[in-house]
């Protein structure tokens, strides 16, 4: 084989140059894995639109598809699903906007400005990367409790703004912008703040969008911390936490549970389908830097 397809011989070059049988094997493998990742998701949506009588039947196509499960969870007075949806949306949007604002200005200072203590402070930021997150759970819970923020949006949002990933990510990007652009603006008499807002930020819109998307998705999906802070305030739950309580309430009511899962999933799934290229690229970047 090595001699036949000499040019495409690298392990990773796939079916290029390969004959039809090789291509077939290749695509079969790809498809097999694709099914493993895709089918459970499909099964979730299929179960969600099945009527009670069909839940435990193995059909992939429901005989009598219905939206009853969705209607049930939305009208159940003990389940403030609409409120949860709103909470999730509010928390995710606020987290995203605030993270971008806070991280962008900090990243710009760390990337471009000279100041006493810069390396020490940046070293501190770096050092927290190796600290296992498990250490912060109990003390941060107590801090949030002492601030009177249990059961509030800010209780969920504020600790997230401490993260250092966004600062590193944007700093890296800012360092890649040619300095001349900023210097020209400064010479023209613009202040450093104006330069940052008018020159640097527009150039960074792609990086900001990427950070924004992954921040939004992480905030939308957050479970443990949201459970800790909001767990006792039913009205304040986010969808993922609410979904967990749904499991306690509906027990083995699979159709309704999968409808709840579908409602929780749809917003991020739609976001993902449209923006997958940026999302995947941003993840790829985190690895290359490590």
């Amino acid at each position, binding site marked *: *084989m*090595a001699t036949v397809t000499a040019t495409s*011989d*690298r*392990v*990773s*070059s*796939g079916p*290029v140059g390969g004959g039809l049988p090789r291509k077939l094997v*290749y*695509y079969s493998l790809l498809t097999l*894995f*694709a099914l493993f*990742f895709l089918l*459970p*998701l499909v099964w*979730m949506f299929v179960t969600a639109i099945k009527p009670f009588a069909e839940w*435990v039947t*193995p059909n992939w196509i429901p005989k009598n598809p219905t939206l009853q499960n969705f209607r049930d969870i939305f009208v159940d007075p003990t389940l403030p699903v609409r409120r949860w949806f709103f909470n999730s949306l509010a928390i995710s949007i606020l987290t995203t906007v605030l993270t971008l604002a*806070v*991280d962008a*200005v900090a990243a710009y200072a760390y990337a471009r*400005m000279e100041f*006493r*203590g810069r*390396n020490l*402070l940046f070293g*501190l930021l770096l050092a*927290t990367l190796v*600290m*296992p*997150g498990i*250490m*912060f*759970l*109990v*003390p941060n819970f*107590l801090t949030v409790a002492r601030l009177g923020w249990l059961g509030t949006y800010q209780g969920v949002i504020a*600790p997230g*703004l*401490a*993260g250092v990933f966004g*600062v590193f990510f944007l700093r890296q990007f800012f360092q890649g912008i040619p300095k001349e652009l900023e210097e020209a603006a*400064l010479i023209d008499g613009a202040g*450093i703040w104006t330069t940052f807002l008018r020159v640097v930020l527009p150039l960074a819109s792609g990086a900001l969008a990427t950070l924004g998307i992954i921040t939004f998705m992480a905030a939308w999906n957050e*479970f443990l911390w949201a459970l800790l802070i909001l767990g006792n305030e039913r009205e304040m739950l986010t*969808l*993922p*936490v609410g979904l*967990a309580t749904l*499991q306690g309430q509906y027990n*083995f009511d699979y159709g309704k*549970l999968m409808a709840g899962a579908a409602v*929780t999933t749809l917003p991020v799934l739609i976001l993902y389908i449209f923006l*997958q290229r940026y999302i*995947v690229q941003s*993840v*790829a970047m985190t*690895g*290359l830097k490590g």
Partner: protein
Amino acid sequence: MATTPQVKAGDVATPSTGVQRRGFNLMPYLFILPHFIFFGTFLLWPFFYGIYISLFDFDFLRPEYRPFVGLRNYQNLFSRESIQFTDFWRSIRNTGAFVFWSVPPLVVIALLLAVLLNGRFRGRNFFRALYFAPYALSVTVAALLWWWIFQPSGMVNQLLGRLGLGQPQWLSEMPWAWVAITVATVWWTIGFNTVIFLAALQEIPESLYEAASIDGANPVQQFFAITIPMLRPVLVFVITITLLASANLFGQPYLMTQGGPLQQTESIMMRIYSEGILQNRMGSAAAMSVMVAAILLILTVLNFRIFGRGDQS
């Protein structure tokens, strides 16, 4: 690092660009201040505060009773008579077992998937997006979905039934409960590792493979002689983050097995949650956290030492 930071910081502060030279400049500090307030409150301070709490009998609901107990919370973790002993070490063993069984597939299969995706074929981005898609879900959704699939009457057992095979109670029998949790975890998170590996594979210069090809190396030889060595830094990174992620296991057993049967899938994260938040023994929970963090830190360092040999980055 502890001895010389002042000196280093002073060196750096000597301005080299002409832009903002004169005197003390407040501007940079104003720029970093908003982030630093949150960073200080929720990442720097809790590091010390957590250790401080672990030295007290700290009941969140009884602020008037908060005696200093020294190292007793730590001693309890090592004393057979304490109420913490059995639960704590069981959850450590459980989490250790999960790390042991979940990290190899999460790394090895991810690497194979990345190699598979690294060909120049039509639809690569499509497949890549598909493989990564489950990672976009909340752990609640992923866990609940697999909880449903592994139900006694769920899809897996229906499939096994039709094949005439045995149908275990996946979520309430050992070791099947761990199998179910591991499968759910692999499904949910392996796309992340795959994407990182894929990006790293694309950085490897084509010329290396061409040279090896000319020398007569077959694809498998090339994989071990070129791909693996070139990937080493990324491999260490991926192993480390996967190890830490697996050690932080919480949502999957919380939702799929509630830690059962008989607390045999209760992870250390669940134990700390239960001890600190549900039972209000926060001093003890903080001591557990410090212990676990120390273990993880040691594992991380070991990992870099063992797998990172000769690595410059």
